[in-house]
């Protein structure tokens, strides 16, 4: 096959010799169970996470993490920014879908017994990923700074305060003070867009490397 595509791939190949280097990935056959819907839920979750990362970065261009600016900037994104309503809507609804796909994924893994040795640590990393999804949702919910987000956060931090011994400290720690105020917005925003994504990428890598090394569990 002549033409510019093969020229291009030849040009790349001559310089960096990628074919060899990537062959463990490119030449691995997709498992024979590939047609079955039940093996797709992890991948669907990951696809949605990529959607969240991309739309989240776009939102962050306009979002203002302050008591004065938060709600107003969200309204600005929704009503003024070109396609802002679309980006925000995708970010919003994909975050709900992630919870659905991740829970279905987990249930399928559970009922197939795929968490059993030698795959225990894949399951454990999955539990961390689930908790990260919850943390993303909890911190993201406050960012709109509307009645729903504000009160949901008050209830969430209030729950934390009921833990024995560390409860009150934990509530103040989460809020950055006695109330849900400016320090809380900053805390939640930085966690939502920097800290949690870093942890997410780390745990995703671990999850995927282990799956690669061990392969998908054969169905029983």
């Amino acid at each position, binding site marked *: 096959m002549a033409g510019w595509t093969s020229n291009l791939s030849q040009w790349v190949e001559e310089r960096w010799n990628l074919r060899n280097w990537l062959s463990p990935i490119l030449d691995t056959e997709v498992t024979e169970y590939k047609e079955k819907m039940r093996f797709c839920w992890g991948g669907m979750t990951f696809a949605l996470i990529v959607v969240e990362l991309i739309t989240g970065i776009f939102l962050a261009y306009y979002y203002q993490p302050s008591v004065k600016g938060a709600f107003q900037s969200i309204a600005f994104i929704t009503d003024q920014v070109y396609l802002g309503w679309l980006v925000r809507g995708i970010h919003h609804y994909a975050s709900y879908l992630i919870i659905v796909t991740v829970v279905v994924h987990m249930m399928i893994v559970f009922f197939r017994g795929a968490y059993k040795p030698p795959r225990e640590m894949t399951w454990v990393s999955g539990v961390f990923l689930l908790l990260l999804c919850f943390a993303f949702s909890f911190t993201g919910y406050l960012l709109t700074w509307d009645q729903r987000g504000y*009160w949901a956060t008050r*209830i969430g931090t*209030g729950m934390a*305060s009921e833990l024995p011994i560390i409860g*009150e400290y934990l*509530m103040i*720690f989460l809020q950055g003070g*006695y*109330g849900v105020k400016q320090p809380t917005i900053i805390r939640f925003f930085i966690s939502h867009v920097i800290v949690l994504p870093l942890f997410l990428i780390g745990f995703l890598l671990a999850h995927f490397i282990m799956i690669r090394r061990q392969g998908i569990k054969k169905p029983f």
Partner: protein
Amino acid sequence: MDEKNAIEMKNPTPSVSRRKLLRFIMAFLGLFGLGAILSSIIVFLTPPRSALKKVGGWQVVGNLSEFKESSLVKTYFGLPVILIKNGKGLLSFSTICPHLGCIVIWDEKKKWFICPCHDAAFDAGGKVLKGPAKPYNLLPMEIKVEGEMIAVKLPEDKLPGYPSWFRITMISGV
């Protein structure tokens, strides 16, 4: 005799125990370093004392001249308290619903406090009538009138019988 055995004969004590000790020391230092880093992160993220501005103790919330007629209710934005004047005199309650912390409002027609969040209701004396706030009543506040000034006392210490978020919210100034 190879080199390895020769060394072992010169050192009768097995060097394994020394290796074990070194490994133990390294592990200890590693864990110590990790603990130092983790605890520093937690310390850094803990809000400093000066950022914990609380509104506790006596707070002036109004003026007697505002309460000429009875059955008058005033809410104080910025402070989660309500002043109410009825047949019994001047009363004050915390407006924080003891269910999950929403702000209750006074319904003048029905003469009760109603919570917009999950429909808890409290009578004019703060006693819970219905809804998920049971068995907690509205927190009554101590009132002091000095001259024309009305002050209420916000709690500074633990409120026995109320959940801990309740006190923290009380002193945060909503």
